[in-house]
């Protein structure tokens, strides 16, 4: 769906990019106030929260921003704090005795520790604690929809690349939280992904797949095969693209 502008093309005011660190701190705060991760993210599994984070930074990347603030945090966690080893997703869950909620809080606590340290340390002691200069998120006119990212994932997986390359893991809820993270990033920058909304409506109208229950329905239709279910969803995105016409 193309965006219609009134009269001569008006350029939107540039919007400062809000790092995924801000989003993760918000998640932490809500979780500390008792909101369950299942409601916040649609999942209780650590790797699926990571997919949410990945969706957020992927949206930034597709829309002109590399989340350098997150990268600096990650480098600090890896190189200074020593808590971001290879295979860190599995190791966080292992360290927390298989408790995914604790693993999530462990990562979120590191984010809070980093941000607090950065605020306390002035001037910054090392490059990892420097706040990168502000960057701008794409204006609505140039927003790249999550559907484009899903088409990209579809293309790569059709070529034979595994889903984990895009998502970190290979479950339908990971794809779902990835999409949520992507949409959340757009939302934080004042953008509603109209093409995603139209696609969701089309799923309901044409395939009787309501957004709030498509995970369950797709898994049922795929005999609980997550890869198959993800392929189904991405095939729908491609089919919808034929109806949608050029973006």
């Amino acid at each position, binding site marked *: 769906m193309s965006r219609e502008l009134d009269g001569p093309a008006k350029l939107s005011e540039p919007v400062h990019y809000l790092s995924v660190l801000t989003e993760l701190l918000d998640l932490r705060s809500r979780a500390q106030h008792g909101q369950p991760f299942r409601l916040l993210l649609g999942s209780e599994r650590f790797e699926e929260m990571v997919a949410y984070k990945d969706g957020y930074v992927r949206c930034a990347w597709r829309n002109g921003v590399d989340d350098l603030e997150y990268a600096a945090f990650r480098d600090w966690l890896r190189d200074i704090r020593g808590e971001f080893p290879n295979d860190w997703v599995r190791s966080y869950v292992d360290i927390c005795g298989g408790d995914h909620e604790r693993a999530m809080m462990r990562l979120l606590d590191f984010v809070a520790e980093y941000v607090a340290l950065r605020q306390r340390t002035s001037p910054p002691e090392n490059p990892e604690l420097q706040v990168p200069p502000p960057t701008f998120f794409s204006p609505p006119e140039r927003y790249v929809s999550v559907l484009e990212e899903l088409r990209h994932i579809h293309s790569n997986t059709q070529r034979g690349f595994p889903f984990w390359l895009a998502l*970190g893991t290979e479950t339908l809820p990971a794809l779902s939280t990835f999409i949520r993270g992507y949409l959340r990033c757009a939302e934080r920058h004042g953008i509603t992904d109209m093409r995603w909304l139209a696609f969701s409506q089309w799923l309901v109208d044409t395939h009787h797949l309501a957004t709030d229950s498509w995970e369950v329905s797709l898994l049922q239709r795929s005999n609980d095969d997550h890869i198959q279910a993800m392929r189904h969803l991405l095939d729908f995105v491609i089919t919808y693209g034929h109806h949608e016409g050029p973006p």
Partner: protein
Amino acid sequence: MASPVSLVRPALLGALPTPPLARAVPSITESTRARFLVLLAQGNLRAALEMWETHTGRAAPRAAWAMHSAFDKANQVAGACIRVARSVYDGFKSLGFQPQLVRFVPPSQAEERLAWEMRAGVPQSTIQVSNNAQHYAVKQGERIYDAFTGPTGMLLDDYLERLHSPVGRPLMQAVESLP
């Protein structure tokens, strides 16, 4: 009293990599090194080391023989790259080469995954190499060496055909040391 600069310099020099070993073993000629690389490019580390011993009249350093186990297929797993890069780097240095430590990173700094196509042109054979945003290797001349390339090494362009990230071709960075 010494200036702050002169106080700092020795510490900095101490932190630099060790002086080129070529200086300590002057009999290694350019042609020995060239022939070594030709044999290595054929995947024959043993023959390359034996040739080196014949040409120099001395036993190849232990660090050079250790490259053999660094290139072992058992090291084609996530998490082994730093150990392998250290071993390969030390091996080349001990033979009088000037290798360069390199790090591959996703083109977006916020991304974390790197994957290696085990069989060229077969994306289904891709395995995860890193999920913490870095993969280390060694560059000697035009070729990249790690556990995945084995002793033959690979030209950078060919290497980058096999190394993937979620958002496109990874980037190579020269680094001074390994973590």
